């Protein structure tokens, strides 16, 4: 099974719409929503036979006050400001790093695993689907992304593809979304900020030696920047595999929980098919 991650420097470039549409068009695939901060794909899918797992991706320090002598050493070694003057742990700030536990002369501290979200795998009309949700404000989104990918793989039943809806940005959760994939598709839009974000995600793919393709959404919004993007891609050796026009109808469809594939937008469907063919052709070489 080959894994393809769809990413974008930022959300809102149409990444989830593209993944949802791909999941309707591509046969023989599984889909994983790895945007664990704000997963959206499940809104468009009807899930059946959902299996759900609690996820404990973080640890927090705890104090056994019977042993504590209030020496304050823990507070002094904590680099995250998570222990107050009166030796109380601020859970939102604690990174579970263990420094205080190691330093406490009274052995009064320990780390406890905490539940920070969940993962799930379910069956949908479009194949097996995994997603997850990180508790608001929690640490470790990267680890949860890794967990979603780990959870869905054993469900493989001869599928050829795993399509991953990646997280925005270039930090830990994106790195976790693309590590070990066979290719990434970077979705962007022709805006100045889109261009700057695109360069950074393409750099990231290159950094990890993963082949990257580009899809320009709303390409006709600003032809100058679209041309600049295409030129940039040619220079740097990235293939632009798709260009989707600005179409308020796509937003309208979404408002009714529908993808452009559902509404039968033929131009869009053709473009997505051609995009997918270009990527798979490259990968089969």
């Amino acid at each position, binding site marked *: 099974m080959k894994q393809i991650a769809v990413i974008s420097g930022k959300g809102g470039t149409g990444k989830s719409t593209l993944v949802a549409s791909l999941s309707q068009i591509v046969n023989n695939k599984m889909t994983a929503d790895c945007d664990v901060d*704000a997963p959206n794909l499940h809104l468009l899918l009807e899930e059946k036979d959902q299996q759900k797992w609690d996820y404990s991706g973080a640890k927090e320090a705890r104090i056994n006050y019977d042993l504590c002598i209030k020496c304050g050493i823990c507070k002094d070694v904590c680099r995250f400001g998570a222990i107050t003057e009166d030796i109380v742990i601020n859970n939102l700030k604690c990174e579970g790093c263990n420094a205080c536990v190691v330093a406490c002369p009274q052995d009064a501290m320990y780390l406890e695993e905490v539940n920070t979200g969940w993962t799930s795998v379910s069956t949908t009309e479009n194949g097996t689907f995994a997603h997850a949700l990180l508790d608001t404000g929690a640490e470790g989104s990267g680890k949860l992304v890794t967990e979603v990918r780990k959870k869905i793989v054993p469900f493989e039943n001869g599928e050829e593809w795993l399509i991953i809806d990646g997280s*925005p*940005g270039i*930090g830990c959760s994106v790195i976790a979304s693309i590590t070990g994939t066979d290719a990434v598709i970077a979705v962007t839009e022709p805006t*100045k900020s889109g261009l700057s974000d695109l360069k950074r995600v393409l750099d990231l793919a290159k950094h990890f030696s993963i082949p990257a393709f580009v899809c320009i959404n709303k390409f006709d919004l600003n032809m100058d*920047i679209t041309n600049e993007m295409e030129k940039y891609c040619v220079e740097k050796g990235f293939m632009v595999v798709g260009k989707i026009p600005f179409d308020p109808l796509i937003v309208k469809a979404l408002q009714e929980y529908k993808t452009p594939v559902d509404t039968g937008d033929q131009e869009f469907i053709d473009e997505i098919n051609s995009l997918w063919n270009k990527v798979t052709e490259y990968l089969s070489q």
Partner: protein
Amino acid sequence: MKIAVLSGKGGTGKTTVSASLKSSIENCQYIDCDVEEPNGGIFLQPEISNVYPVMVKVPEIIKDKCTGCGECAKACQFNSMAVVKGNVLIFPELCHHCGACILACPEDAMIEVERQIGVVETNSDESFMHGKLNVGEPISIPIIAMLKDMVKDDGNVVIDCPPGSSCTVVESVEDCDFCILVTEPTPFGLHDLNIAVELVKKLGLSFGIVLNKASENSKIINEYCDDRNIDILMEIPFSRKIAEAYSKGILPIEADADLKKEFGEMFRKIEGKVLA
């Protein structure tokens, strides 16, 4: 007054709103905490005159002293150390700079060395600041922390937060007086807004909503807000013209004087709420 602008997801117009708000308030500092993809500068066009490296401390082994006991790796919670056959391996990208390994080493065989993970850049009077995470680095919190340290205590500050709702957002909104949640009227927008609302409530911060790309479909957001008694501070209409201006790096308030007035009014509204 410190105002944080966030959204469950990027792409809802968070940067447009923060940059527009900054430009509608006099003597306002703008801080772009979206250090993975900083975009505020594209709109505000600051002249960068100071570049500060953001350094973190990572452990290094003094080989002569190390006995290979493995206590350091046992203490590390982030898999950034391994002891294999008496040799200590360090993976600096994964390090959270916590110092636990050093505290754990019985031989005093470790020191900390500095390592750069990105930069903070400012214009000459520091009315504009942003951070940039180096590509390939997973951990951005220290850059956000440095930006937050440079916040001016007296005047007004607008903080453009990273997308999502995880630890980076928590770090960015900390100590703010008010949060603006930017959303758009789609099911995705509503879903992510709900997550952002949960976050700010959990942190006990006051907040209000800016509805971007408002259209005849705004109902789904309006109903959500009505049900929960959440204030919609302002609506920005959905228009191709605004989208085109945005694509060129032009703020909607530059194309539309009324909108600029509305941003000013929103600021006063927020001021009223915070001071009340």
